[in-house]
Each structure stands twice: as C-alpha cells, then as structure tokens.
C-alpha cells in the first residue's frame, strides 16, 4: 500500500442513467477496501446524489457545504460501513445540479489535493452534462458502465466519443453490468469495442462483467452493500475480478 503518492482517481460514468453506476461504485469500493486499500468515494452526481441513501446514512455535512459554505472537502469526509470513506453530496438541491464552472473547478482542485488514499472513486451523474465531463476529465481512468440495452450502448459510446473529441481521451474501461452470463457481457463489450476501433481509432479496455442478481435488489432495499451481505455470491466474485483489473490499471 502506498498512501504517500497521489491517489489513483477513477470515475464511474455511463451516459445513460440507471445502468448501475452507483451500485458498481459502492460495491467496487467495498471490495477494494476489503483487500486492504484505502478508498475514498465521492458522490459527484451533484443533482441526484444518492450514495448516502444507498448506505442508509444521513451525513451532517456534504458537498453543498463545500461549494456554498467554506468547508474543505476533507471536512465532509465520513467513514462508512463498507470500509471506505465517503464524500456525500446533497440530493435535490437545484443549485448543485447547475454548478458554475468555477465551483466545479473548486471541487476538482480540492479532490486533487486529497492525500492518504490509494484510490478515489467518483460516482458521476447520468448524461453528457458539463459536470460529468469535468469529473471524467479529472479522473485518471474512466469506467464506462454498459448493460445489454441498446440505448445504454449508444449512450456509452457517445460518452466515449465526447471525451475523446472534446478532451482527447483515448483510454476507457468498460464494465458490462446486469448481464445474464459471462459470454453476454463479453459480446456486448466486443460490440462497443469494435465500433470504437472502427470510428474513433482506439480499443477499449474490458474490466469484466457483473451478473444480474436478485441479491442486488435485496441489498438495495435493506440499504446494504451487496458484496458485504453476500460475500460468497457470484457477484462478489465478479467484483473481485474487476477490482484486480482496476488495480492493474493503477499499476500501469
């Protein structure tokens, strides 16, 4: 573990909403934490933040106090039952969804300043909004979550294309979520990968898949983290594989 060096920042993004970004962020964070990594999760879905709800906590301070008060990001960090730390955001605050460019810059600068973590995971909002692009830009690596729906593929591809055309990004990782089996995950990845090679000129990196599992719904209802409630489940296994792939990215 090397906490002195700068944390590896990974954003979890998608284009389309509801594909499982938040689910993947919290479960990946918990898996990495269990492996002994110091992990910080930042809820960057500024308009519709919900990690706090997913974890059943009610933090006193959140990103709003950083943006509109004079708190530092460090002051709002809280530990969670997942073994990782969290920067909560406030939900339903209109001003947060339409943050000025400068305000986003303030958050970005503070995030870059944070030390003492191996990884920082950013859970972004849906869509190709400026805020989302900015957080993706800040991250060392973008994980784009897709599922078997065609609209999730086109939206994920749009996200990759925009990040490439606007900021010159050429390195993206894909997680296929909510898939019936391993083969299905691989085939939807191959689809988007071949389109990226053909139209954008670079390949995508496959981190792996997460199976469709009713354990997910159950944990969500209980405000628990699936990989912790069901440590021997197939999806816990999926997350172990993905976490190894993420740590490989960090090393590279």
């Amino acid at each position, binding site marked *: 573990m090397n906490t002195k060096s700068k944390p590896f920042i990974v954003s979890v993004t998608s*284009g389309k909403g509801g594909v499982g970004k938040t689910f993947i962020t919290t479960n990946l964070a918990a898996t990495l934490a269990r492996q002994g990594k110091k992990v910080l999760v930042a809820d960057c879905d500024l308009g519709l933040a919900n990690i706090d709800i997913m974890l059943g906590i009610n933090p006193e301070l959140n990103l709003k106090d950083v943006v509109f008060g004079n708190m530092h990001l460090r002051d709002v960090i809280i530990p969670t039952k997942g073994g990782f730390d969290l920067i909560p955001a406030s939900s339903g605050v209109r001003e947060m969804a339409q943050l000025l460019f400068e305000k986003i810059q303030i958050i970005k600068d503070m995030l870059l300043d944070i030390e003492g973590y191996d990884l920082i995971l950013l859970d972004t909002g*849906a869509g*190709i909004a*400026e805020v989302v692009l900015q957080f993706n830009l800040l991250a060392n690596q973008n994980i784009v979550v897709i599922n078997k729906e065609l609209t999730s593929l086109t939206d994920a591809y749009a996200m990759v294309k925009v990040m490439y055309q606007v900021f010159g990004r050429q390195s993206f990782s894909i997680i296929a979520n909510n898939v019936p089996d391993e083969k*299905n995950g691989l085939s939807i990845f191959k*689809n988007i990968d071949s389109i990226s090679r053909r139209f954008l000129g670079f390949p995508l990196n496959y981190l792996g898949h997460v199976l469709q599992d009713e354990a997910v719904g159950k944990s969500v209802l209980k405000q628990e983290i699936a990989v912790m409630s069901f440590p021997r489940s197939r999806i816990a296994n999926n997350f172990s594989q993905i976490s190894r792939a993420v740590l490989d990215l960090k090393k590279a």
Partner: protein
Amino acid sequence: MKPLKKTVQSSPEVTFTAASHKHLQNILKKVKPKSGKLLSKKDQPEIFIILTADIPAEKRTELLKSKKGITLNPEDNLLKRLLELEKENRHLKSLSQTDELTGFYNKRFLNKQLKIEITRTKRTGQPFCLMFIDLDNFKSINDTFGHAKGDEFLINVCHLICEKIRPTDFACRYGGDEFVIIMPATFLLDGISIAQRWHNLIVQVAAQMEVNVSSSIGIDEFDVSCTLKAEEFLDKVDKELYNAKNTGKNKVSYPGERLKANKAEEKFVTPAEKDALYKGSAPLKQKRK
C-alpha cells in the same frame, strides 16, 4: 489618366500628388516653388498635394515621367476629382476580401459571410460554429523581438491553418492578433475538436519559434432555433473567448449547457455509428431467442 495629362498641359496651375510624404519633400527641395502648400501627413494620410503655379515646365515633365506624381489643374475641379478617386481607391482596397499580411479573409468578408451562414442555417436547419481565437501574450513578441518577429509568427500560424483547414471553413483575421473561423454545417462538438486542433497548432508554432505565446479560444454553435443577429452572435462568442481569457487563458471555452444531457447523445452518435452498434448487437438477439 489621359484626360488628366491634357488638363495639365493647358494650364499653368499645377497640383501635384506624390507617392509618399518623403518623396514629395525631396521634390520640393529640388524644385523650390515660390508658393505652394504641402498638406500635412495628418490631414491626408495617403495623398500629398502641393498647389503651385511656378514649377518650371521641364521639371513638370520630369515629374510626370517619374510616374510618382500627377500634375493637374485645380481650376476645373480636378483636385476634387483626384481626392475622390483616392477615396474610391481606398474603398476598393477595403472591398477586397483578404488580409494582406496573413492571407486570411478580412473582417469585411467575415461580416458578409456570417450573414450568409445565418441565412443558410435558417434554411437548411444545419447548425454552424464560429470560433474566436485570441493569442495570449502576443505583445511580448513584439516587445522583446520586434514587430518583424511578431509578423513572422502570425504568418507561420496562418499559413499552417490555411494548409490544414477544411476547405469549407473560413478563416478570417479580425484584428491584430484576433482571428475568427466560421465552420458551416458543423455541430458544436466537432467545432470544439477543431478548436482544440488550432489551439495545439499554435502551441507548436510557438515552441518552434521559441516564443511564449498560446491561444485562448471561444466557440459556440448557431443552430436553427437561434434568433440572434450576426453582431449579437459575434458578441456571444466573444464573451466565450472572454471566459477563456478570464479563467486562466491558454484554453478552449464553449457553452457547457449546450453539451448537456437531454438526449444530447442522439446528436453525437452518427447514424453510421448507431447502425454499426445495432448490427453488432443483432447476433446477440438471435442467440437469446
């Protein structure tokens, strides 16, 4: 020019215009007219006129031969006509479409083309993009290395842009170190990547010439729903440039809200890409059946 000569010969009164102020002063030294008037540089930046009746005939023909000046008779209003001719000349010059130093289109052309593009967008529904490029720190070249080096930098940048620009785009010099590029039939997203390209190119030229210059770029899209007039749209893009300047320079600034969700994805994925994605998924569907 022929009628002018005729008049000169028929009259002792002579008006003279020379190519330059200095040239005229030299002539004045030579011919030493007893009476005459040299209009100051300030009054007439381009025409220098001397009214005199006593230029000797042989000097007069000499002057005529030198082709650097014209003699004429002010009595029949030729002076006035000459001034008008000069004015028209200047007008014609400004009517030309290109900037002499850089070879870019000039501001006059820009204003004309911008109106054309707005009409075109209204008719075809296809958006166009416009970017303002302003060099950061450009004055420092002129101050430390002189204007020649500054000009050289501008020429290098503009020639490279001319070489690489899409044949449908218009590059215009707006002012000293300000440029405007109009990109017809272009979505903001593509416009931004082109802006990024020019931004990088300027960085490269600066590195090659070992000067500390970069560029700030503001860009926006004019779409079919936009009701702004040409000047108002220019102002809007100029504000975007101002934003780039104000948030640290050396960057491309664009209106973020235009790239916002709202099924914006639809706009970014071309039919060909979408088609390929859908086709790629087709065998999948069959397998599931």
